[in-house]
């Protein structure tokens, strides 16, 4: 509207000017005839047409100039916005990159605060014991009370020194307070050196690459409030040791990880298996070393399927004399796993088998029956039902079922008594609900069946998150 008013005013001004200017070329005396009058009118009309044309051209030029100027400025601004957006994550030009990770590209990327990385996860739950709370102890307390626990709060910190050298770590606060039986531990802390796709190096406190849970145990990514017992009692998650090794992709879909680590400490082996023999990088004895390796295959022709296995072998005697004898205590653990994700369905199965050498002598020295063999397996199936109820929903609601079977004393040395309470099967049903992918609310029920003794069943309700 303002533009039109401006044009009109300009036109009136010009017409007025035109009237004055026209007097220059037109006789000033009074016309004597109609013909004279007609000539004057024609001359005036020509001048008006000419001036109007000039006026229109000037006005058009001015408007066109304004619009193109605005468009140009908008383009410049949007380009600058896009540049700012993308510059935070990718460099603009190739020449800013460094072939060896220490040059200007790295500086450019990391100057904007991308070097330091903070994350974390946590899980808290309420557990109601059902069926049998195990009576009371001498102080009158229930042996297996209902309980509420902030089980884990884990802070992840990483630093990317260059494109090729990274540090990753997780510091875990378990059971919320060291004053109440909880603990603070470094869950892992390792340097990664990226060399090529097939062979990269990792060194430091490493997570043993066995099973599903030991490496990926953030609460949104497993069913139920508690990790599968097979991946606690047979594969002693979270299992970490000091070591170094290689990881990479040998062929499309075929990945591996292998480390040399300090061995376990057989001094702490028990009828519950090797779990207490983990050294967790706490001034670990390294008289004996161990080797662990893992291979996974995710075939292109079967999207969503991963199949793999891992093996651990190493002596755990740590050059100690057990009842005056040096024992090797060769410890072996093997595991195979399969995972299948298909249209909201998630299936996992895992089997593990272990052997402990010198079990008889070790049992005598540790004054407990230590199994020469142990095993465990489980299968679980979950299905995201929410798309069938609310097709447009991006949330997740999956009921699941899990069956587990394990025995840490699958085979006991001659002369030692089997503890049948270690022969255990668990039936579990539950629900995982994720309002967003990073947050999970879980409810589940576990039914424990031992060959001897009676463990309580439990109902668990909890929350978990990752950020």
């Amino acid at each position: 509207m303002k533009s039109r008013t401006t044009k009109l005013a300009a036109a009136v001004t010009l017409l007025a000017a035109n009237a004055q200017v026209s007097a220059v070329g037109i006789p000033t005396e009074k016309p004597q005839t109609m013909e004279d009058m007609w000539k004057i009118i024609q001359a005036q009309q020509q001048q008006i047409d000419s001036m109007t044309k000039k006026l229109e051209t000037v006005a058009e030029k001015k408007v066109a100039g304004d619009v193109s100027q605005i468009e140009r400025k908008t383009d410049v601004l949007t380009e600058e916005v896009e540049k700012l957006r993308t510059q935070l994550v990718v460099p603009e030009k190739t020449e800013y990159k460094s072939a060896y990770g220490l040059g200007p590209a790295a500086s450019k990327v990391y100057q904007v605060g991308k070097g330091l990385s903070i994350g974390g996860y946590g899980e808290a739950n309420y557990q109601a014991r059902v069926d049998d709370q195990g009576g009371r102890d001498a102080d009158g307390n229930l042996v297996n009370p209902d309980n509420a626990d902030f089980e884990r709060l884990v802070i992840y910190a990483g630093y990317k020194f260059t494109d090729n050298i990274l540090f990753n770590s997780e510091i875990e606060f378990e059971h919320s307070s060291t004053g109440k039986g909880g603990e603070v531990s470094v869950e892992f802390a390792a340097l990664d050196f990226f060399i090529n796709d097939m062979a990269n190096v990792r060194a430091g406190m490493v997570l043993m690459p066995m099973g599903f849970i030991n490496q990926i145990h953030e609460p949104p990514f497993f069913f139920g409030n508690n990790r599968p017992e097979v991946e606690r009692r047979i594969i002693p998650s979270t299992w970490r040791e000091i070591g170094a090794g290689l990881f990479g992709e040998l062929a499309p879909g075929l990945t591996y990880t292998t480390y040399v680590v300090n061995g376990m400490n057989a001094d702490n082996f028990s009828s519950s298996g090797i779990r207490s023999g983990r050294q967790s990088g706490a001034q670990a004895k390294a008289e004996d070393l161990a080797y662990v390796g893992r291979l996974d295959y995710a075939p292109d022709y079967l999207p969503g399927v991963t199949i793999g296995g891992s093996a651990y072998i190493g002596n755990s005697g740590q050059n100690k004399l057990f009842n005056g004898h040096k024992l090797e205590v060769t410890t072996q653990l093997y595991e195979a796993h399969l995972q299948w994700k298909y249209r909201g369905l998630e299936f996992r199965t895992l089997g593990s088998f272990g052997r402990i050498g010198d079990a008889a002598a070790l049992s005598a020295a540790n004054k407990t029956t230590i199994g020469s063999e142990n095993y465990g397996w489980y299968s679980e199936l979950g299905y995201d039902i929410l798309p069938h109820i609310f097709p447009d929903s991006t949330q997740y609601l999956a009921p699941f079922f899990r069956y587990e079977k394990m025995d840490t004393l699958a085979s006991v040395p001659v002369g030692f008594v089997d503890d049948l309470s270690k022969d255990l099967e668990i039936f579990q049903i539950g629900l995982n609900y994720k309002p967003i992918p990073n947050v999970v609310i879980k409810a589940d029920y576990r039914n424990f069946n031992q060959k001897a003794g009676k463990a309580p069943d439990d109902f668990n309700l909890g929350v978990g998150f990752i950020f």
Partner: protein
Amino acid sequence: MQIHKSVPVVFLLFLLAFWMLPGWAKVFYSKEEAMTLAFGDDATVEMQSLFPSAEQMAEIERLAKVKLESKLFSFYVGKKQDAVIGYAAIESHNVRTKPETLLIVLDPNGNLRQVVTLAFHEPPEYQPPERWFAQLLNHQLEDLSFGKDIQGVSGATLSTRAALNSARKVMAVFQVMLKQPEN
């Protein structure tokens, strides 16, 4: 079983041998390289900025099932001899707390033609393998979902979900803002 202590020394020497191999892994692509990946060496690239109206924003969000964080969207338009050969977008999103940056390329009709990771600032074990992105190609927008044609990958749940969201968003922006109505 006796496990000889010299074995780890040999293993460490093996590591050292790999260490000394020339050639570091390429983690990042620059934007310049990204455009070459998308359109080749001989194409010209122009930027096209889109400013969706409130109605268009709502329609994009409905189709993509994601919340738009900006009212400005930029496509890089690849051209050869003045003919459009494709549309590329550089999309960044946080996986946990750090960004994953993808190059998402559409053909002139808005079909998903290529998805490449340009940068990944989370630990690399969370990074989906490049071949996983091949699953996304040649699918309709509504089929880009874990409940439908796309299968997840273990260890990269958050990053693959975020990548799916980005692909849907770029396709939805094209459909709402650029797609010519079919005759």
